[in-house]
């Protein structure tokens, strides 16, 4: 199988993939709002919306129609242009980020094999980092332009929180880049197939950092400080109603979807079907191969429609699990205080992520020195080192010392506070 030639069919295939992925993301986002309400209802022993259509199936459509027909309000003192620009800037990067994530094995067509990724660009992960940090502009502009004190505080909090956790997010990605030696996500998937282990094992602590930063980046509980209802009404989108509110909502869920897809791709093998070698295929000298034989000659892969569908199902299942995790955590953990959020980001995650990058780089170089080839043994050695680092992180680094509640302050600050508390009794 050869790749599709650059030309008319390449662009046509690209446009078809764009439309398919864009519509699937929008539909998935609509049903994630329903899933959120249903799952939260089940967690709280309620039924949730189940009246519009069977099992509430048509609820997202009804919500959409309601939102588009409702009256929009805008404070008379708001900055009109930026008030409109805010939601647009929030939703544009959110819907465009999914483009570089591969979602299935290449599909054979009469014109050549088509990669199942919208754009397999050489910058890969860097595109995602760049676009996801653009999202912060939408929130800050919305908060500032509303001319509302709560919205303003929400926008400020959103900006400080998102840029803080972007540092830890970038550093956790560096460990992945060291393993793959490339920044494209197709290569990340291929290296996990070749290693025989998903990166969640050899890079366990990076996965922890990535999950925590992803929750903070998407402003989901326990990090939803920018829209903490009990403090800020709803934060930066307090003044937004109807469709403009919907745009922020869609943007947030699209970010959740992209973050879940990224967790699946970077750490859980992407579209790789576990324990099965038949789906291993990658491009080598313009041919789609599944690996190399003993003599080092390439072995041709046999892409087919059902392999593409099986890998697509595998990718969808992994992504759906992480979407569920986002909802599950939301209804399990209480919200942090703002100072705890910032302390966790700067005093715990940043130094630990830096140390972890140095530790993993050193381990990889030692393994190379010992002559261990990139393969299962290499992966297992890294799994051991990384597992120890993860254990150390959880057991020694933060036991109420840096990110603690009020009782921790009393315990660790010597004298004054403790005696003040005692004299109050």
């Amino acid at each position, binding site marked *: 199988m050869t790749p599709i030639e*650059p030309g008319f069919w*390449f*662009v046509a295939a*690209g446009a078809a993939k*764009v439309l398919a992925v*864009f519509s699937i993301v*929008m539909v998935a986002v609509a049903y994630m709002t329903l899933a959120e309400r249903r799952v939260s209802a089940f967690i709280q022993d309620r039924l949730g919306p189940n009246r519009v259509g069977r099992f509430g199936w048509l609820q997202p459509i009804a919500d959409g129609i309601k939102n*588009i*027909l*409702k*009256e*929009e*309000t805008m*404070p008379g003192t708001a900055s009109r242009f930026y008030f*409109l620009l805010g*939601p*647009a800037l929030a*939703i*544009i990067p959110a*819907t*465009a980020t999914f*483009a570089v994530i591969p979602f299935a094995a290449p599909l054979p067509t009469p014109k050549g094999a088509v990669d199942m990724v*919208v*754009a*397999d*660009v*050489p910058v890969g992960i*860097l595109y995602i980092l760049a676009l996801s940090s653009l999202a912060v502009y939408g929130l800050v502009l919305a908060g500032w332009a*509303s*001319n*509302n*004190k*709560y*919205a303003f505080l929400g926008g*400020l909090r959103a900006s400080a929180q998102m*840029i803080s956790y972007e*540092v830890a997010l*970038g550093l956790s*990605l560096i460990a992945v*880049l*060291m393993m*793959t*030696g*490339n*920044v494209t996500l197709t290569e990340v998937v291929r290296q996990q197939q070749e290693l025989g282990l998903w990166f969640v094992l050899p890079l366990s602590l990076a996965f922890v950092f990535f999950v925590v930063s992803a929750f903070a980046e998407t402003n989901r509980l326990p990090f939803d400080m920018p829209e903490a209802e009990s403090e800020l*009404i709803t934060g930066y989108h307090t*003044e937004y109603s109807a*469709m*403009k509110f*919907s*745009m922020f909502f869609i943007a947030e869920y699209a970010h959740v979807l992209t973050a879940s897809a990224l967790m699946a791709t970077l750490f859980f093998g992407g579209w790789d079907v576990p324990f099965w070698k038949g789906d291993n295929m990658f491009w080598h000298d313009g041919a789609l191969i599944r690996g190399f034989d003993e003599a080092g000659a390439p072995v041709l892969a046999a892409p087919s429609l059902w392999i593409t569908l099986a890998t697509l199902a595998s990718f969808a299942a992994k992504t759906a699990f992480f979407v569920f995790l986002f909802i599950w955590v939301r209804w399990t953990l209480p919200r942090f205080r703002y100072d705890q959020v*910032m*302390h966790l980001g*700067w*005093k715990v995650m940043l130094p630990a992520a*830096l140390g972890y*990058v140095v530790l993993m*780089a*050193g381990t990889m170089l030692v393994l*190379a020195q010992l002559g261990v080839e990139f393969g299962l043994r290499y992966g297992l050695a890294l799994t051991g080192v990384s597992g120890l680092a993860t254990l150390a992180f959880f057991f020694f680094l933060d036991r109420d010392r840096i990110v603690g509640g009020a009782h921790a302050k009393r315990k660790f600050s010597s004298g004054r506070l403790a005696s003040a508390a005692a004299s109050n009794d």
Partner: protein
Amino acid sequence: MATSYIPLLIILGVSVVNAVGMAVASHVLNPSRPTPQKAMPYESGMIPLGDTRARFSIKFYMVAISFIVFDLEAIFLIPWAVRMRELGWGPFVAVFLFVVVLAVGLAYEWKKGGLEWD
């Protein structure tokens, strides 16, 4: 390959059209019955007091400045990270020194109270 960027441009275009389309569609379809109360900022039902464009805590600036330093650090590490295994020990030591310098910077900021919020 430069051609691989074409679908990226298409999806960015589709996203922009989608965002503009949503705003325009609701603007055309929704009713507009403004009242003075609707045009007031919503601050929990209270009549807003004071100016929103007031001064706010300097800590947000501190965070932004620290972010520039440490995010650039992550960006500088990426080119090394992708070639790390081929480059070997020499660049590793160089990167280690770079990280140590920044860690000292972080420790200084921490000690000076730049990361405190209470």
